[in-house]
């Protein structure tokens, strides 16, 4: 068997663009799902009572539906309902955020709940408002405890961006498919894509573990 990796060097700009989009989409949907997840977690914990079943329903539904289905529905079905067309990148960002925010919300909720209620009562006794308690007592400890789970969520986010290839987001997976299809050299192209994903993902998971090891003591109480 002959391998010819010149297909990678010949298309390196095209593939590098895919890596770039993968990174941009990962960061954008990671940040967006954290922000949305934080709001959802607060709604579940502190929101009006009538809203809570709806929030729980949303979270559990996202745990039940494949991200592929969410992405395909967002890209193909949502424009029919809303009348507004979306670029694949926007649809990918929205679909991934809607899906991952549910997971982020659960992580944030677990982190907030892990801080013993005695601390909240002590802060109340000292005259703090509930917003102050959240900001100055609960969140500083909870955020550190959430770190390992955020690390795995980030790696899940990066892996899930590859699924956005099915709605033609020009990220690494999609670009690799295109090059593989044109060059008839799937082995070289997909093996290169594997290497690239591993090079992106492995340092992320290791880096988060290492960082957590350094700051873990801040979350103890």
């Amino acid at each position: 068997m002959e391998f010819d990796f010149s297909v990678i060097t010949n298309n390196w700009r095209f593939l590098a663009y895919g890596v770039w989009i993968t990174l941009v989409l990962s960061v954008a949907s990671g940040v967006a799902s954290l922000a949305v997840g934080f709001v959802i977690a607060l709604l579940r914990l502190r929101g009006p009572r009538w809203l809570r079943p709806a929030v729980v329903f949303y979270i559990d539904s996202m745990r039940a539906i494949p991200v592929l289905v969410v992405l395909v529905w967002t890209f193909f079905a949502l424009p029919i309902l809303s009348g507004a067309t979306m670029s694949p990148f926007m649809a990918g960002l929205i679909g991934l955020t809607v899906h991952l925010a549910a997971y982020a919300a659960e992580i944030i909720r677990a982190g907030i709940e892990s801080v013993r209620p005695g601390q909240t009562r002590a802060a109340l006794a000292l005259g703090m408002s509930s917003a102050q308690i959240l900001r100055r007592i609960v969140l500083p400890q909870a955020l550190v405890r959430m770190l390992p789970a955020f690390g795995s969520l980030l790696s899940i986010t990066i892996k899930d961006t590859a699924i956005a290839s099915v709605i033609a987001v020009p990220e690494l997976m999609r670009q690799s498919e295109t090059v593989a299809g044109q060059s008839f050299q799937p082995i070289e192209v997909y093996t290169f894509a594997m290497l690239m994903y591993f090079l992106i993902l492995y340092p992320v998971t290791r880096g988060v573990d290492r960082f957590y090891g350094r700051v873990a003591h801040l979350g103890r109480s």
Partner: protein
Amino acid sequence: MTFDWSVVWDHRVALAYGTVTTILLTIATMAIAVPCGMAFAALRLYGAAPVRAFATAYVELFRNLPLILVVYWAFYVLPILTDVGLSPLATGLAALSLNVTAYNAETFRAGINSIRRGQVEAALALGMSRAQALRRIVIPQALRRVLPVLASTWVSLFKDTSLVSVIAVAELAYVSMQIRAQTFRVLEMLTAMAAIYWLLGYPQAKIVDWIQRRYAVSE
């Protein structure tokens, strides 16, 4: 805007076949990935150094790759490397098994490591052999701790089976999207697909919650 939901009912047989394929694919993958995961966990924990390195490399590699890429890779590369032409279904099963085996191996390893060393030392002090201590002390406790994680892996796997649609395995996602392409009833078919996944997945997610409460470890 007019919607014609009868298209879903008209294709009920195809959708039912797709659903059954999705479920069978989930069961078959788990049936392969649990014993293989145990084997890889054992290799990592008790194997000789080179074997351990190989098992570690395997687990780290497949935990750090997007499944959809593994599916494509298996589809295009496996037949060329092995000279065996596999059906899309068998290829999809292989890709899913490769992925879930890596996750299960890590789950079993963590489960065994979570049993305190003192227990094995106590068992050895009572005159048990290493194998006895493992079989009678460590594994029974580890299995209880591993069960909730396996349950959530199961739900993830159930959802991930949708990814083998990209290599034309006729499971629920592929069948729904085929019908969409033939009938142009995009919204109806995609919504029906999401609803079927939801109907199957929602109870599973709830059962996982229950298992996690039931087998919660408190130390």
